[in-house]
């Protein structure tokens, strides 16, 4: 098992390592650390049935047992193995975060492209809507949306994605405005290349580095938002294992079984940290290439 994890981690590290080739030592180390953390958590979620010793939703022992060799992180108030719940819990977080960032990228990027490239009234209207969403406190917006949509992982993902659409939109639109003014875009227009193709083939490739940075940073943020939604019971229904929800459940036993909050809390922090580190490292690379 450990071998699989290290192999996956190494693969990811190699891929990212070549991308980060010319980064200075510190930024590079951060980015690699981030990749390893995220890689391990992904591997853990993917191979959960192999790693987890127990069924995460079944009572397997007495409730509120302290950590031991049998139950690495103890058992919760219903006698479920906490370690198994942590391992499986990663699945929900990763799925919701992946879906949310993919959704917001899939909506924010094309809108930003169109708005920035064509300009005019549509651009002004769209920018206003996006700024309005952006101005909202993101967590409160996500909570409100999730509450309206009802608790389920997909709805949580939708609620979170709405929060991050403006991030993509603003970034893409700003860069499009910049690239649009360069002579090679004018020259493509002069040669009768259609606007749709100019956007997808001549502008979008130049945005990819920045998009990757925004992608990892918004994913890091989305982890925290997901945890918050789930803490409030807006992402999953029991008994599904989920870090945010388990954190909420453990909160009630903070006096009698303080170890219970450790697992979910540390995992949420680690995942957010890992994604943020990747974003920082990539950001450093982009800043160096552009600036």
């Amino acid at each position, binding site marked *: 098992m450990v071998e699989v994890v290290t192999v996956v981690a190494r693969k990811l590290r190699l891929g990212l390592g070549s991308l980060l080739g010319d980064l200075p030592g510190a930024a590079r180390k951060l980015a690699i650390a981030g990749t390893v953390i995220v890689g391990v958590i992904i591997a853990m979620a993917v191979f959960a049935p192999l790693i987890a010793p127990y069924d995460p939703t079944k009572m397997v022992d007495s409730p509120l047992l302290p950590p031991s060799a049998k139950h690495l992180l103890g058992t919760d108030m219903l006698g479920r193995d906490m370690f198994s719940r942590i391992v499986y819990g990663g699945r929900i977080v990763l799925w919701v975060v992946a879906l949310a960032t993919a959704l917001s990228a899939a909506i924010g990027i094309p809108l930003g492209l169109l708005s920035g490239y064509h300009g005019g009234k549509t651009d002004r209207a769209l920018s206003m809507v996006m700024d309005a969403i952006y101005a909202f406190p993101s967590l409160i917006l996500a909570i409100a949306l999730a509450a309206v949509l009802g608790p389920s992982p997909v709805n949580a993902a939708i609620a979170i994605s709405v929060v991050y659409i403006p991030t993509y939109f603003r970034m893409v639109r700003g860069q499009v405005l910049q690239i649009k003014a360069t*002579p090679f875009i004018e020259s493509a227009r002069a040669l*009768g290349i259609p606007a749709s193709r100019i956007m997808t083939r001549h502008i979008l490739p130049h945005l990819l580095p920045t998009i990757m940075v925004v992608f990892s940073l918004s994913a890091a943020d989305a982890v925290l938002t997901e945890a918050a939604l789930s803490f409030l019971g807006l992402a999953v229904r029991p008994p599904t294992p989920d870090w945010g929800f388990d954190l909420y459940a453990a909160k009630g036993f903070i006096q009698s079984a303080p170890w219970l909050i450790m697992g979910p809390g540390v995992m949420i922090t680690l995942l957010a940290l890992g994604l943020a580190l990747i974003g920082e490292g990539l950001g450093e690379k982009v800043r160096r290439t552009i600036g």
Partner: protein
Amino acid sequence: MNTVLRVEGLTVHYYTLRGVVRAVEDASLEAGKGELVALVGESGCGKSTLGYSLLKLVPPPGRIVKGRVLVEDKDIVSLSGEALRRARGELVSIVFQDPFTTLDPVRTIGDQLAEVMTEHGVGEEEARARVGELLESVGLPRELAKRYPHQLSGGQRQRVAIAAAIALDPRVLVADEPTTALDVIVQKQIMDLIDDIRRRTGMAVILITHDIALAAERADKIAIMYAGKIVEYGPKSLVLRNPLHPYTRALIASVPDIDSDKWPEPIPGYPPDLRRPPPGCRFAPRCPRAMPVCKEKEPPRIRVADRIVSCWLYRGG
């Protein structure tokens, strides 16, 4: 010689927040098959704006207010949407000044050339096949198709830009200072290439330049622009040997001549602010031969022998 391009009364204004800039006013000219017409003038005289409007490519807040650009009896100014897109590249093309920035840095030369053809209805495979020929026709090796722009020299990039512009065999090629960013040896090669192309294909070339010597060397006809207006237009030999308009004379006198002892004579004053051009002739404030009428009424276009001049001095014909 049959006319390929006819520009009639073209007027282009920029609607800026600080006023309307009258960049091109009532410009008319013609170019025959394979002819090179040089558009000569100093910076800011509207020559590039005129060149861009031949493709209806005036950047906002600019707008073509009036006039027609006829290429093979199609009025480019009246086209829009898909028809305009097709016309760009198929009827009129343009080569820009700076070859270092006109190619997309992240895609190969071959890709960019093929794209021009496929987006104008040429099949994918045929386009790929024609990239090689196209490169050879501008004096580049076929292998360059696999390269990226940063691997090419400035001269090579300008050749690629020309290849892209002529890929669809347009009737008119606008060359906007195509050699300004290049060194003199490469300049000559690029101009030779443009000459070769227009002789081979019968493409009319509109050469936009501030370099009257270059125009003297390459052009068939010369149009002298000042402050948005074509002040004198006619066959090269007539315009250069016997300039009529005082501005043309001043411009020619301002060019250093290595064979003569005379110093070049600068033109006193500055071009006018095109948001508030002077009433009457726009050159009148700097003109050594200005008369009272020049400052009151715009001079008409007067045909003198084979050329057209906008100046009150020739009102009698």
